[in-house]
């Protein structure tokens, strides 16, 4: 409660003075299920950043890290694709995702990116089996694996960050309002997750870059999250209350603990590295779930739509006219004075 006061950016009077239609939401609640879509956000991030680790390890000669990076990338992206298809109202029509190529649709962009990333990550992962084959086949697999691994690594960051745009490019107050920070938050969260998972799966000796990536990711994740909720205005409430609030709290704690543990003991102890890595990954997952739920909550209460819009209008009042030729800029829908 005190936290809420502290962060309250909208004067109490204003909140209570708005009208609504029987308290019914103005916006539609996203129909996505948290189980699939928040998981998908997490898995996509994990996959994208893991592909980076795999490729880096390949280039820098860390076979264990390469293997884990590639396998995790492939597994995660496969799982994320399953989650995505499962969430479709008409799963049998999933191929329609490639019917068009729409830069205005993050989901379309994502689909194309995934269409590139998925096979390359898969090929890279397959090469881990193939390289054991004798002779030319093995060599071919190794070479193909490198190419595919590099390809997936190039697309990996896109996989990790396009989901931020996917969420932001909606009318959901919390998601849209978060758009300036969200790509960074998601990139960092992906890094933390991938680093963490790699730290779990890889002997500490080869996992240095993973730990560093994980810790750096954790730090940026925490920082970006804090920045975001400061700037979000009223919608930030949704990150502090209810299910989203609990998840967010858990996310910070896990990420914080994971980062500290990894930093402190990850190099020395395999157990500590694994624990720290697991905490980081769990933290990253919680971050995604928290954000997802906060967005949903922001659609369920009409205040988050009406109050900021109303004050925006009021601020504009004397001049009249509506945002006529206003240039696009980082003025999130939810922000106001």
């Amino acid at each position, binding site marked *: 409660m005190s936290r809420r006061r502290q962060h309250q950016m909208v004067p109490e009077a204003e909140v209570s003075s708005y009208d609504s239609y029987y308290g019914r939401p103005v916006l*539609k609640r996203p129909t996505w299920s948290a189980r699939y879509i928040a998981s998908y956000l997490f898995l996509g991030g994990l996959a994208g950043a893991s592909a980076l680790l795999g490729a880096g390890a390949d280039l820098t000669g860390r076979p264990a890290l390469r293997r884990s990076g590639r396998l995790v990338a492939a597994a995660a992206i496969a799982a994320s694709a399953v989650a995505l298809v499962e969430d479709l109202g008409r799963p049998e029509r999933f191929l329609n995702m490639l019917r068009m190529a729409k*830069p205005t649709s993050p989901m379309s962009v994502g689909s194309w990116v995934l269409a590139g990333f998925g096979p390359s990550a898969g090929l890279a992962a397959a090469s881990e089996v193939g390289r054991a084959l004798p002779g030319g086949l093995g060599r071919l697999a190794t070479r193909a694996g490198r190419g595919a691994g590099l390809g997936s690594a190039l697309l*990996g960051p896109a996989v990790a960050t396009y989901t931020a745009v996917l969420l932001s490019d909606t009318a959901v107050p919390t998601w849209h309002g978060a758009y300036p920070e969200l*790509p960074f938050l998601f990139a960092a969260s992906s890094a933390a997750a991938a*680093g963490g998972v790699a730290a779990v799966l890889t002997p500490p000796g080869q996992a240095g870059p993973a730990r560093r990536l994980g810790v750096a990711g954790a730090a940026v994740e925490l920082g970006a999250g804090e920045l975001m909720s400061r700037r979000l205005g009223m919608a930030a409430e949704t990150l502090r209350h209810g299910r989203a609030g609990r998840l967010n709290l858990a996310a910070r704690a896990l990420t914080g603990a994971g980062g500290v543990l990894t930093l402190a003991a990850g190099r020395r102890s395999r157990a500590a590295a694994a624990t720290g890595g697991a905490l980081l990954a769990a933290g990253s997952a919680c971050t995604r779930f928290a954000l997802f739920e906060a967005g949903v909550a922001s659609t369920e209460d009409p205040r988050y739509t009406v109050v900021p819009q109303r004050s925006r209008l009021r601020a504009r009042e004397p001049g009249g006219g509506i945002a006529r030729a206003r240039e*696009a800029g*980082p003025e999130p829908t939810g922000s106001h004075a």
Partner: protein
Amino acid sequence: MSVSVTTGTNRLAGPLADPAGEAGWEGAPPRVGFFTDTSVCIGCKACEVACKEWNRVPDDGFRFLGHSYDNTGGLSASTWRHVAFVEKPLPDGKGLAWLMSSDVCKHCTHAACLDVCPTGALLRTEFGTVVVQEDVCNGCGYCVPACPYGVIDQRPGDGRAWKCTLCYDRLGQGLEPACAKACPTKSIQFGPLDELRQRARSRLAEVRASGAASARLYGEDPGDGVGGAGAFFLLLDEPEVYGLPPDPVVTTRDLPSMWRRAAVAAGALLAGAAAAFLGAAQ
């Protein structure tokens, strides 16, 4: 392909005279839409029923909401016209206002639902309207949170997204949409958008002159957050009173900035990963 936000072609926000042209329709007919004059609405819900009969929309369940005479609650995948009922004491304390207003998809000039749709199921028609193609939609659900008015929704059990089509099938034959045709008091007026905007302005003057000081047009301004709605309203009170957002902005207005930031973040991630490895090499 030039994607600029408010100028040039392929715009994502701001005034836009010819959305159909931007959607690749050459020689398209004039843009059509709705002017819903709520000052003459009698809340009969003929529009709701006529829409369902024409479009064979299933019923939306039998729930007593008791929100005045509103028992459908809002627009949904199975309610494409929705009549809101608002009971309010008059400002002078003498008597009561009972406001009724038939809501519908706004057929935005910049339609977020359409732009975020990955499959192209959502379509800008040659009439400038926005429709879902039921044979294409795969139920990804993206359009649902994208709409700043909370219009479009997925139908449980069916999985696809549904909303007002502005009777696309009828328009092709020069027919009036079913809801507008039925409306007993012509609260719903259908026609070329330019004409409707003019008519709305003179009607507003009339209504104001008759003493309704708080009457206003909603969604008719091409300069508003969605570039003007294809279906706009004369309201007698604040929009939020009817369950409408007071100042909706199409989310894609910020999309270029989002992509830029995502690109920077992706780059940062790439760089970060590189640094993680390079740091180890040192």
